[in-house]
Structures are given as C-alpha cells and as structure tokens.
C-alpha cells in the first residue's frame, strides 16, 4: 500500500561542487567520435547521411566562429555585451536541426546557434547587443521569438503558444530553451504545470551548462534537473548535450510526441559553458582550470569532426573549406554590425503602443520640439547649450 516509504528516499545535498554526475545520460557519439548505441534512440538518427552530418558540422563550426567574432567585437567596443555559447554548439545545433520551419522557438539570450540555424541574417545577430534595437529579427520570419532576458519567462510563452497550436489543430510544436539556473524560477514550474494539464505540444529544452553565472547547478537542485519533469507528470530524457546526435534524436522523439497529441517532453542536455557568462563576467572567480580542461576533452565539434573523418565524409580540404566559410560568416557579421545605423531619436516613442496613444504622442511631440531647439539655434532659447 505504501507508494514510497519517505524515510528511504533520501535526497542528496549540495556540496561545494555541483552534486550532479554529468555522466548519466544518453550518448550516441562519444568524446572520441565513436558512434555508440542507445536503444530507443538510434533509429531516430538512422536517416542522417553524410550530407546531413556535414550540415550539422558546418553550422556548429560556423556559429562557433561567429560567437568568437562577437566576443572580439565586444572587446573592441563595437557591441556592449555578449553571452558566448561556446561549448553548447551541439545542444543548440542538434536541437535546431530537429525542428521544422513552422515550429516556433522561445529562447533565452544565449541561443545564437538556434537562431542561426533558423536562417538568421548576419546583420540581425548583433542589433540587440549593439543597442540599436530591442530585437534583432522578425519573430514570424524566423519562427523564433525575441530572446528572453527575464529568466524562465519564455517557458510560459512557449506553453501558451503550444496551446494556440492545439486550438488551431495543426501538428506544429513549440520549443522552450532555458538554462539550468532557470529551473528554479516559479515561471519554469508553472510552465510544466500548464503543459501537463493541457498536454500542450511543447518541448522543454534545458541546456544544463553547469553554471548560472557563478552558481553551480547543484545550488538549483540536488538531483538531475530532468527528474523535475517527472514530478509534474511530464516524460523526460537526459542526454549528452555535447553529442549532437543524441540531442537531435531526443528532440525528434519529443517533437514527434508533440505532433501526435502526446503532449510535452522535457529534455536536459548536459553541456558546458566554456566561456564567461557574458563578456562582463570573470569566471576565474568561481571555477577551476581543471574543470575547464575536463570539459575541453568533451568538445562537441571535435567529436563530430572525428566521426565525419572516420566515415570519410570530411578531409583536411573539406575542413578548411568550412573554416573559410566560418571566417566569411564572421566577417559578414562584423561588417554588418559596424555599419548598423544608429536609431532615430524619436523612434524611442514608436511601437510603445500599436494604436494611437494621446499620452505618448504628446511626449513625442514635446521631445521633438526639444530636439528642434538644437537644430535651430536662437529659435528655441537655450538650444546652444549642448
């Protein structure tokens, strides 16, 4: 009659280091690039031929290069801030390649690779980070919402969007990307509640990159994050997030469930943020070189390259071609970034409302008069001060 004798199910406790073993996960491609088998998952990537694998590799290499360029642009003062994704290429590219164009993505601020795979224009990547716009792209064009900065808020948006899909009766899906730290916010749990209750066609994609700024994942949970989903009645998978094949397989499984009325799925992709939280962060304050070295040995790109080479699908020339392509993409992003025009001062009042608004319209008018003083010295009195 006893479902659980409470006294035996003892929970782990946070230690100084993350308490979570980073190894209990599904893996299809080991760090050396060897294909390993995982029953229930293998068939979901069986269709990937050399071309498809190369496409994954190309996107990962390119975005890795573009990410580094963005960091450089920040160092050079061309953009204000950058949250690097380095280390998370497989988690992002693998999941993005599983999506259909008509699925819809709700992400955090770090999913540059997802946006890239969805057809991002180079000039749109850095608009936000250069401070010229509130969003880089048209969400409806990319099938991807404006990245979210309020931790976990987007998880609810994804569920709501999925509820909309249900009402429209299509077989699309929504996917929410969020971090390990985000799992602690109330919104993230409420999203699981709503998704489970309405069986919404949504995929919760948690990139557990081990850190929320300076806080190890063990501070958010004493056990695997994926297990949280089970508590809400949502099926879950925990995959090697540096293994692009495992990520893709899991995401395809989840999407298929969503499309066929099976409701939500939770994926924890175990990965690592190799760089700082953002360019404003100093990770040396909170983590060790050993930890970094350890994760360097599990690099997501190197292992896919090894697989491709072992399959004869990539040689040095091929790799150089892709590297050149990556350089070109980085150059395009740089060129686009530095030539982004500054926004018009009065655009500050645009789009606050969709409809005319007497209050904002008046403030615009007043501010226009104020600015005009500087254009026409003498007419406005004190215009000469500036």
């Amino acid at each position, binding site marked *: 009659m006893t479902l659980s004798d409470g006294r035996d199910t003892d929970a782990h406790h946070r230690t100084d280091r993350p308490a979570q073993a980073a190894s209990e996960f599904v893996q299809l491609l080991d760090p050396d690039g060897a294909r390993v088998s995982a029953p229930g998952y293998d068939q979901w990537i069986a269709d990937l031929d050399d071309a498809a694998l190369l496409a994954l590799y190309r996107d990962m290499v390119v975005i890795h290069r573009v990410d580094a360029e963005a960091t450089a642009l920040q160092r050079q003062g061309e953009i204000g801030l950058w949250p690097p994704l380095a280390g998370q290429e497989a988690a992002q590219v693998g999941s993005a390649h599983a999506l259909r164009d008509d699925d819809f993505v709700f992400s955090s601020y770090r999913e540059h690779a997802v946006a890239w795979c969805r057809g991002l224009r180079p000039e749109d990547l850095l608009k936000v980070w250069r401070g010229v716009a509130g969003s880089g792209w048209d969400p409806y064009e990319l099938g991807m919402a404006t990245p979210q900065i309020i931790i976990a808020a987007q998880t*609810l948006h994804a569920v709501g969007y999925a509820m909309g899909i249900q009402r429209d009766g299509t077989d699309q899906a929504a996917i929410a990307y969020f971090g390990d730290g985000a799992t602690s916010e109330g919104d993230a749990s409420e999203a699981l509640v709503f998704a489970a209750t309405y069986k919404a066609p949504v995929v919760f994609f948690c990139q557990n990159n081990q850190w929320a700024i300076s806080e190890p994942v063990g501070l958010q949970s004493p056990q695997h994050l994926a297990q949280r989903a089970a508590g809400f009645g949502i099926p879950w998978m925990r995959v090697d997030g540096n293994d692009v094949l495992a990520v893709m397989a899991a995401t395809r499984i989840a999407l298929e469930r969503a499309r066929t009325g099976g409701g939500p799925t939770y994926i924890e992709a175990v990965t690592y943020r190799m760089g700082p939280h953002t360019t404003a962060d100093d990770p040396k304050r909170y983590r060790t070189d050993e930890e970094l070295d350890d994760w360097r040995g599990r690099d997501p790109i190197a292992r896919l390259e090894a697989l491709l080479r072992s399959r004869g699908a990539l040689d040095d020339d091929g790799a150089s071609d892709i590297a050149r392509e990556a350089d070109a993409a980085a150059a395009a992003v740089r060129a686009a970034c530095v030539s982004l025009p500054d926004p018009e001062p009065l655009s500050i009042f645009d789009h606050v*409302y969709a409809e005319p*608004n007497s209050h904002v319209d008046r403030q615009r008018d007043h501010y226009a008069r104020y600015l005009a003083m500087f254009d026409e010295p003498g007419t406005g009195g004190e215009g000469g001060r500036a």
Partner: protein
Amino acid sequence: MSTLTLGQALNAGLRRALEDDDHVVLLGEDIGTLGGVFRVTDGLQRDFGDTRVVDTPLSEAGIIGTAVGLAYRGFRPVCEIQFDGFIYPGFDQIVAQVAKLHARTQGRVRMPLTIRVPFGGGIGAVEHHSESPEAYFTHTSGLRVVACANPQDAYTMVRQAIASDDPVLFFEPKRRYHAKGEVDVDADLADAPPMGVATLAQRGDDVTLVTYGALVQVARDAAAAAADDGVSIEVIDLRSLSPVDYPTIEQSVRRTGRLVITHEAGQQGGVGAEIAASITERCFEFLEAAPVRITGHDVPYPPAKLEQHHLPDLDRILDGVDRVLGRPNSLTGVEG
C-alpha cells in the same frame, strides 16, 4: 435596451466578443463550470466550450504568461484575475512582457491581451480582496488601463478592450457588480465613445470632481448633496486611467478653477497624484486652489469593520470640495 447588472453586462460583452472573433480565448481560475466567483463568465464555457473558456491551474504568472504565448500565436486572450490582490504573482509577466513586447519587437508582435480585474473595496471582505492596484499599471508604459463604472460602459468597454491591439488592464468595480442599468446591446461599437475618453457623469460649474470605478456613483451622490448646499459639482468619470483624457478634464477645470480627485487607492503615487500634477502643469493659471485628493489612506487595506474609515465617501468628498472652495473644512487652520 435591456436592463442588466454591471456583472451581466460584462457577461454579455464577453459573450459578444467570443461570438465576434474566434481568436478570443478566456483564461482564469474558476471561470468555467463555476462561471467565476462573481459569475461574470457564467454559461460561457457551456456555450463556447473549454478551449475558448479555460479553467487554469492556480497560477497568475501562468495565466498571463501563457496568454502572452497565445498572443504570439495570434489569439486575443482575456485573462481573469480572481481578485485585485491576486494580480501580483503575475506582475512580472505583465510589466516585463505584456507591456514591453510590442515595443521590444518594433511592433512585430502584438499583445492584444485584456486582463480583467475586479477591484476596490466596500464589500466587507477579508484581506487582499479589496485592493486598488491600478496605479502600478498606469506607471507601466505599454499598458492601457481602464475602469468601467456602469453597465453600459462595462458592456461596451470590455468589447473595446478585447478589440484593442494593445494590452488593456480592465478594472471592474466589484461592489457595483449588482448595480443595474440600461444597456444597448445592439449599438454599433463604432458609435460608442472610444475607450480612451472620459465622460461627464454630471454637469457642474463650481468644482471639477474626477473619479472612476465604484466612486463615480459616490461622486454623483456627493454632487447631489452639494447642489442642495448651493455648490455645483461637475463629475467626470475618467474611464481611461492610461492614457488620461486630459482635454476633457482641462476644459472643465478651466471653467471651475477647482479640482478634486477621489479614488480608493492610497494617495501616495496614486492616479490622483498624476492628475493633480498634470492639471497643475496644464492649467496653472486657471487654478483658484491647489487640487485636492480624497483617497484611501496610505495603509494596507484595513479589516472590514474599518473600511468605512478607509474609503472615500460622500462626506469625505464634500470635505475635499469645501477645502478646494476655501470653505471651512477638516484642515482649516492646519499649516502646510
């Protein structure tokens, strides 16, 4: 014309919106089978089904946050917050998402949410059930904020709010839910005064009295009492708290030279502060006296047996009228 209570008028307005646009979706706690704790959504789930009228889990952030997602997908969500005091768990989604998404996306994503909030006191309720949180939202750029005061406006304005492409905080004066009035349910929406304009609830010449929600009736009663006393009060029903229809107030104040504002919310940083400051800016040379605010005290909403001392009533409003007229009043002789 039908005679409806304010609650019934809202129900009729919601029904009409559900009929007119199948992208309208109602979300809230207990709004389905129960028809809402005030029965404002009575019968709607029965008639429109549980994908249009949705009972949600107990989570206000969840209600607003999923509504944002629905709006992303092209729906027009109408969220019910059960009582004023329960809106705060949804505050982040309202302030950081609903209010900002249209601007954030340079106008690409619209947030035509309507967030219905029964508000105000006077019903002898326990804590958290009598609050007036509207000023938090009037201080939030990107939101529209309205309050209805009578059945006709309830019916019309809720439809206008739902039809608006901007997010609207829609405040319903809960102690007036049972007040009856004539409602023209067939009138064309296009013929109704726009949601953003204030209306004259009572013409007058000596003092301009501005209010909204449940206090509109109290203000009219005060005007009637003052008339017996030879004082002619013009009562303005604000209706829209953001943006405020300043031309209408200005026109009145230029005539009367005297302004009293009354609301149930606390004085400090309330809607009255903004109106007093703005009208002073706009009509300084017409003012015969400083604008007076008659409001709830700046205290947490008190226990039921004390709410009569918290809420502006006819006498307190008339004391304010006396103050702005320079007649003897409770602060006579008080400095500063």
